[in-house]
């Protein structure tokens, strides 16, 4: 049957969107680029595996850590990855609740990004253990020892928070995906795809009753996800703030971490949005307006993060505590001042270009600025970890930290761990929410008709 295109007031049709988006997994359009990307990502993943084998064979001594800097790359990258992950949930959940429908073009891959970023983050607390094979001791189970986990520990909170976050993110992602999987199932022609999408769609048939319950569940989960995001990264900040180490022991830490997390996360979302848009020709769905909005959000969260920097200085000076001031001075001018100033420069200097609309609407500019923010936030986490630990209270325990080869290899390896499943996911599931885009399109057309 011919498409009744005359009755659609806008350029594109619902059917066109469905075909376009389900077509990405079903008839993958960018094979060569994907293979190259996958090869690079797999190489990185292999590097991670080698690093982990080395790590488990010899011990965490292969890293550059010591006493006092006994947390460095592992925790630093954990925080960094988890922070990146937060944007996905924030975009989906917060914007869904506030009815910001522009999110519809971004939420799916943002959520997918979240999942794999959280996985990357999640392996670090296990890797960094001296005896990772006993990680299950962190869970309460009736052991023959009769000993339980210690629930006053921020690390114990952390394992619950991250697992909850991973599970709820997965649930939320999947709930939103079900109708799209059904759409893909109905477009699929090959038996294999039909069975894959058929099972994963759980037999979704778009029944009005189902939609009604689904909507309630989806919105309520979103409502839960927002405080969850805030709580998770607040909790992560408590890993540091609960200790007494100067530079950590501050009440600004929870909001500072949450905003920093959102900031770095939105930067990664921007990177992915720009990349996927050019890769799969999704300019019709991820429009310049979307980039514009992303730029604004980035700018806003960036400025809020900047406030955290300012407040940290205020906090230290206001406290008048000699060790706090010493740590602050050390951040400004000590051995690791490059991390502090690097963080300030990468995070906030290019960011200022986003005050201009033309920059926000340029994919390339946004990509570069976002990359700068990602680097800047990485340096910030480095700064928070290392500058606080390497010189704490007692002068006699002051030391230094230099990352080793294995520090770097593990870190770059996790980028592979992120990219490989992400690249696979691109081929398996629709990367932009089909039904929500259609819904939006329909509403826009309504408005055009009536307005």
């Amino acid at each position, binding site marked *: 049957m011919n498409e009744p295109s005359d009755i659609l007031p806008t350029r594109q049709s619902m059917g066109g969107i469905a075909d376009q988006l389900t077509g990405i997994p079903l008839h993958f359009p960018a094979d060569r680029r994907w293979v190259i990307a996958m090869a690079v990502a797999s190489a990185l993943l292999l590097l991670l595996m080698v690093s982990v084998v080395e790590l488990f064979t010899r011990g965490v001594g292969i890293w550059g850590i010591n*006493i006092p800097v006994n947390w460095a790359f592992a925790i630093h990258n954990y925080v960094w990855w988890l922070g990146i992950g937060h944007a996905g949930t924030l975009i989906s959940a917060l914007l869904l609740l506030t009815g910001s429908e522009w999110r519809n073009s971004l939420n799916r891959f943002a959520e997918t990004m979240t999942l794999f970023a959280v996985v990357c983050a999640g392996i670090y607390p296990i890797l*960094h253990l001296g005896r990772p094979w006993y990680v299950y*001791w962190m869970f309460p189970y009736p052991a023959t020892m009769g000993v339980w*986990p210690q629930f006053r520990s921020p690390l114990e909170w952390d394992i619950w928070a991250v697992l909850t976050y991973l599970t709820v993110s997965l649930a939320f992602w999947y709930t939103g995906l079900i109708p799209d999987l059904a759409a893909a199932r109905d477009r699929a022609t090959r038996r294999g795809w039909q069975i894959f999408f058929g099972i994963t769609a759980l037999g979704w048939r778009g029944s009005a009753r189902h939609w009604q319950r689904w909507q309630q569940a989806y919105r309520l989960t979103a409502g839960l996800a927002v405080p969850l995001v805030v709580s998770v990264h607040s909790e992560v900040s408590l890993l540091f703030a609960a200790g007494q180490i100067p530079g950590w022991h501050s009440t600004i830490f929870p909001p500072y971490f949450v905003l920093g997390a959102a900031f770095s996360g939105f930067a990664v979302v921007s990177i992915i949005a720009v990349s996927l848009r050019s890769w799969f020709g999704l300019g019709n769905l991820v429009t310049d307006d979307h980039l514009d909005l992303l730029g604004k959000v980035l700018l806003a969260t960036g400025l809020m993060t900047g406030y955290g920097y300012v407040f940290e200085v205020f906090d230290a000076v206001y406290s008048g505590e000699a060790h706090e001031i010493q740590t602050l001075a050390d951040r400004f001018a000590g051995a690791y001042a490059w991390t502090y100033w690097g963080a300030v420069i990468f995070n906030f200097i290019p960011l200022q270009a986003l005050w201009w609309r033309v920059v926000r609407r340029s994919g390339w500019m946004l990509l570069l600025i976002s990359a700068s923010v990602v680097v800047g936030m990485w340096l910030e986490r480095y700064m928070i970890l290392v500058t606080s630990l390497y010189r704490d209270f007692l002068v006699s325990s002051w030391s230094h930290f230099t990352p080793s080869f294995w520090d770097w290899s593990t870190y770059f390896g996790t980028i592979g761990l992120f990219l490989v499943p992400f690249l696979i996911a691109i081929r398996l599931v629709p990367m932009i929410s089909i039904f929500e885009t259609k819904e939006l399109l329909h509403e826009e057309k309504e408005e055009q008709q009536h307005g």
Partner: protein
Amino acid sequence: MKRRTDHKATDGRRVWAGVEELSDDPRFQVFIDAEYPSVHEFSKTARREFLKLMGASFALAGLTGCEKSSFITALPYVDQPSGETLGLPRYYATAVLLDGYAQPVIATAHAGRPTKLDGNPGHPATQGRSDIFMQSAVLQLYDPDRAAAPSRHGQAVSWADVESAIGTMREGWRADQGEGVRLLMGPTTSPTLLRQLDAFLKQFPKARVHVHSATGFEARRQITTAVYGQPVDLHYGLADCDVVVSLDDDFLGPGPDQVRNALAWSQARRRSSDRPGNLLFMAESVPTATGAMAAHRLIAGTRRMPLLAEALANAVGVAGAKRPDVTETEARWIARVVAACKDRSGLFVSGLSGGAATALWIARINQQLGNAGQTLKLTAPVAGPTDTGTLAELASDIDAERVTSLLVLDCNPAYSAPGELNVGEALKRARSSLHVGLHRDETGAQCEWQLPLAHPLESWSDARAVDGTATILQPVISPFYDVKTAHQIFAMLLGEADEAPDAAVRETWRTGFGDTFDARWKQALHDGFVEGAAPFVTASLASETIAAPDAAGDLDIVFQPDPTVRDGRFANIGWLQELPKTLTTVTWSNVIAVSPALAKRLAAANGDHVDVSVGERRLKGPLWILPGQADNTVALYLGYGRTRAGRVGDNLGYDAYRVRPAADPWLTRGSLRKLDSSEELAVTQLHHRLDGFDLAREVSPGEVERTKPEQVSLYAPWPSSRNAWGMVIDLDSCIGCNACVAACTAENNVPVVGADQVRAGREMHWLRIARYYTGDIAEPKSFFEPVPCMHCEDAPCEMGCPVHATTHSPEGVNQMVYNRCIGTRTCSSYCPYKVRRFNFYDYRSPADSPEHAAHNPDVTVRARGVMEKCTYCTQRIEAAHVAADKENRPIRDGEVVTACQQACPTRAIVFGDINDPNSEVSRLKRDGRHYVLLEEQGTRPRTTYLARWREDDGESRQG
């Protein structure tokens, strides 16, 4: 201390008795074989093979962590020795040796293997205190690089071969009365050895004895001979002095006298609770522990010492002393000294580098002040032999081919002789040479024969402590190498029949003990010493003034024994290598120390290589900037650059002997040039400047507070047990000697991790001595602050652990459970004191290492990936609990003694029950100098400190 005597009192078992009934018993060997297979195999199987496998002193092997099945074989005795209580240690009183002097010890032996040495509390000279060398001797015993069998030209031979070769030699010697026989030995205090030496010289009257010591035996003899007309030993009565003035004499520094001096000095120091009990003046060119403790430290080049001595003599009114030209600073210092000495007992002492000129002025001052015989006593030299030749003479004799047989007894001239003598080459030219020593070292390798010497802990011998009190050394373990004692070898030289290993010693003492020999012998073995110090003598001073050497010159080179490996003899002991050197915290290497100003002129930083040349001879080593060093002085430390010390001690640092002149072994001139290369030294503390923090506190006599507010907490207090353990460390007494660290290492199976790991910041010492300085870097004030776990009542670390691996005991001990630890390291991140240590790698040695015999079986050997830290020696606490609980009584004050406390030569560390208001630790917690480290953090530590006295001028204190 009390712990020991209680054992004796309560179980009525034989303690401190000889092991001969065990060691000679084949069944004991069966037991050893079964319990400690490695020790057994070690002596019988190819040694080299498995030595290759193991990682040296790093290699303190572990208990197997996780067995697959718990059904393992158990081997009981065939016939259990009486008095053995399975699982409980036995204690033996004996001694180990330092520079020939006895260091009296109580050896703890678990199932026949010594694991820990502590000072002998009954001994008059050391009163149970120890130093790093005493603590580490037990590791030397298990050194896998020790010579295990006699060898000739490096080929293993049997003792029968040795015996027949010596027999042949003896025939030659008999023919010419020993013409051409030379004996080279280190100083010894052993009555038996000296007796045997006399007998030898009687048999072969033309044989000659030469003495070689790199640590000043000859210099001391020369100086006292010049000053007093005869060789004497000086004994300082520090306990009775109000003022001590030292010219370059590091009397609190490492050496045989350290424990005795430190004990007496600190005792005087604590005479009063509201002001320092004595006042210490120090003039020195290179910073030392004594200088760090001085109230008034004068930086003066070593060559100025005679001048200063004369100026002091002039100032106190010694006849004949002119008023030399001194600088304004020096004059001020002298004026302070004189003011302080007014109406008070002041003792003046001088070191070796000042030479006889200084010593004579100092002796005259002491005479003038009436110290002689009071706070300064003389004895005939405790160490012998007397009437000996020097090493230089021996070298020239060899050159002149006057030496046919050379016997080197327990010294290492090929390494530690001044380089210009070229002793190594000379040794090769001797027709037949015989080296007797623990190792086949540099000298042993050059000699025809190498005869392995038994370690003091496996020997029957005797020796005297610095005060002359003799100790009969008894073996604590039967030798597990094919070794003999010096006495057995001497018996061979004397042509005596091979007798029991204790025969020679018994014979010596049979004369001394007379009729009551059996009883007194038993008593001596039990007590660990024979009552009776060396008698005091008097001597008149030389009347002629000794000319001081020329004071002019640009760059002085000063030689000092290394603070931890001394003359190099201890180079293969991992524990000592890893001890941070007293002022620099450098490990695993020596440094070339210069003043900040000199370093600035050279544009050199720590670790930069410099070239030191003395005459034609030169060496290359890493530079270290030592705040407070005299500008024109370069300090070289002996003991490194060894090539045949063993796997631990080889090829570390530079060899200072290479440039050491034979004529002036302590002070010479030279030049310094910066090289382009540098190295990263393994340092445990990177920053020493206190930067305005009040971490190591000072308090003026007027400032002491009597009452302190209780540390508050927001949390409701947890109920305490009957005992609440706490510790107080007196910064005013701590001389930074590291004895506590060494004792802790030995007691708690602390692993040695090696230079690379130290460089990475991963040293494992549970207790570190923080070194701080304040003030001008050129003229700093130094502090030592031991920092063990604080055992905080509101411990941040415990809160961080997700698996309950570190918790609090009702007695207030911050507990660390290794087997529960998963290694999140949160505890260390949260610890404000950074006292926790982490096993980043598996620091345990392979299971087949013989050194695991040195392990304390009451302490877990930690595996990879777990955190560890000071436990307040919980194994000792729990042992005391069991002992007390079995008797249904509370633990007595002083019944639990931590290893660090037990070792401390100044009694700066006090541990005990703070619930008992009468305990010593409670008393000190009420002291006016008491303070809490980082009190504002609210952690409520159980380990607290007594501030150091801030000392004003003598005048102002009097006013």
